[in-house]
């Protein structure tokens, strides 16, 4: 029980950090970490198939799409 509470706390900290970073690469990396913790929460909620989809999409595809978009535009938030 206390494990889920600590994981939720970690997830909220990472989301707040993603909103505060000025460098968009750091924000995207924090976004991938939020997806990771979300996958563990789905695992605790007895939904392994949803955790599998979230793992495959959140770990690889979302980060790659964001990185390609940042490559085409600019890196720092002014």
């Amino acid at each position: 029980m206390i494990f889920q509470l600590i994981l939720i706390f970690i997830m909220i900290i990472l989301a707040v950090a993603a909103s505060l970073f000025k460098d968009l690469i750091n924000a995207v990396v924090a976004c991938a970490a939020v997806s990771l913790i979300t996958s563990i929460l789905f695992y605790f909620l007895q939904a392994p198939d949803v955790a599998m989809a979230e793992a495959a999409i959140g770990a690889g595809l979302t980060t790659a799409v964001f990185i390609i978009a940042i490559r085409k535009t600019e890196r720092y938030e002014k």
Partner: protein
Amino acid sequence: MTLMIFFGVIIIAVILALIRAVKGPTAPDRVVGVDIMVTITVALMVLLGIFFKRRIYLDVSLIYAVLSFVGVIAVARYLDKGL
């Protein structure tokens, strides 16, 4: 009981990696923190599979072990001025 001690140690390790991922001065520091967090999480998922006694739960860990390096490779190729 033994598994509970292991979960506690792993949670402390995740918190240490989290501090590095939030605090690290440059972008590769944060990527290192998140990469370590991913590898610790794969081990945590296997131990949770033993805790819940369901064999089907190992598939999540398998997917994460296969696909987790794609995001790190993407960030590394961006910092390398490639992609």
